[in-house]
């Protein structure tokens, strides 16, 4: 089971850098995984249209933990527009691939990010 995870994935799973709550977040996104029933929670801080800070929490498998960590890593400092373009293939590539059955986990982080950005916009920015 675990053996099929790449080294890179295990690295992010063992030591995720972006597990945190953001103080007064500007956008919050939470999604449930329809496939396995797991949960992803992600928060962003926005400044001048850029993601200034980002953090996540998850009730999910190693692939979910690692993919969300990578999502955070890839979009931190980017503009919202750039962040919205993030695709699951970017995550999978960054993680050196993942077991087929786990592909849906890589979507969790992206969906949560999109919700967080949506939430920010809905609130009318700042």
């Amino acid at each position, binding site marked *: 089971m*675990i053996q099929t995870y790449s080294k890179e994935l295990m690295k992010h*799973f063992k030591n995720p850098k972006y597990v945190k709550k953001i103080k007064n977040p500007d956008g919050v996104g*939470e999604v449930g995984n329809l496939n*396995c029933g*797991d949960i992803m929670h992600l928060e962003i801080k926005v400044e001048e249209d850029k993601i200034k800070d980002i953090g996540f929490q998850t*009730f*999910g498998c190693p692939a*979910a933990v690692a993919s969300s960590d990578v999502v955070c890593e890839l979009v931190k400092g980017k503009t919202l527009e750039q962040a919205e373009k993030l695709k699951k293939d970017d995550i999978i590539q960054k993680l050196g691939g993942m077991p087929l059955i786990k592909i849906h986990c890589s979507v969790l982080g992206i969906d949560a990010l999109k919700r967080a950005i949506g939430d920010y916009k809905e609130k009318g920015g700042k």
Partner: protein
Amino acid sequence: MKQIYLDNAATTKVDEEVLKTMLPYFNERYGNASSQHLVGQEAKHGLEDSRRKIAKAIGAKQHEIIFTSGGTESNNFAIKGLFFANFPEKNHIIISKIEHDCVLNACKWLETQEAEITYLNVDEEGFVNPKDVEKAITDKTILVSIIHGNNEIGTIQDLEAIGKICKQRGVLFHTDACQSFTKVLIDVKKQNLDLVTLNAHKIHGPKGVGALYKREGIKITPLAHGGGHEKNLRSGTENILGIVGFAKAIGITKEKDVEKMIQLRNRLIEGILKIPNVKLNGSKEKRLCSNVNVSFNNIEGEAIGGYLENYGICTSTGSACSSHSLESSHVLKAIGLSPIQANSSLRISLSKYTTQEEIDYFLEKLLKIVEKLRRISPIK
């Protein structure tokens, strides 16, 4: 890194003595038990001696044991074999909702062949109520099949009570005893068992070999037709080396080993329950000596397993994330767990080789992992 294997419900290592017994059957006593010559007769002797030992272990007669390729085949054989031997006069089979997948899926398939299946509920500890069995029996009922020791939550059913009802009502009674064999008493007379599924790889024997006990006189339709082996009930050249290993494995787990395992199991349960917000799944008392199953409520089982593996510790989980189907365990669902609780479950299963040092090391690491993952979790 040292491996700490705490997944003995999945499979066990082959014991040294078992291996030694098997080795000559690879290249010295390699005969086909059907051959009339000396090499064949040596194999035949190994085969029948093993049959006698296995029969004796459950209080059966030698000729009531049929060798198979394992638990899956024995369960399929019992269920489908009896169905086809009794259909269309009768078509009803009663099982519980916590059977092993091979029983469950054999029954689901039989539903496509005009079988009527009743799936009995269990209580929150996983017990089948014998009264429910009684209520479910109709004049179409062929068989009641209830797992003895559950592979996920370790609950041990009261076979005697269920067997009594089946006998009174004149229906056949089968149990899947793969997990309980050599750990809990199985006595086909006392428990009124008509059929029993056994396998070798859960008791430090080899994989790919098992047996079905079938009380003499019960009609069954074979699944594998061929050269007429096993009294025409299961054709195919017998897996003699597996079979002698299987028979040898019966003596491996002794009563004192079971007692030691119970102590370690209880130490493990006590240690885990010190962590806040943890629930023991299954029964406290009527539980396999080898099984612990817990839910951590807000952290995901495969993630716990993944961290444990970093410390060389092997366990398993009923979480949807780790299953091929991405569905959480049907057993945990049947005892009333929510999907989140099922997804946060961990099964730790011991063997006679498990030591106290291993248990203490496991507990020490688990504590840290749970703390870390609870920080990661959005559910508080």
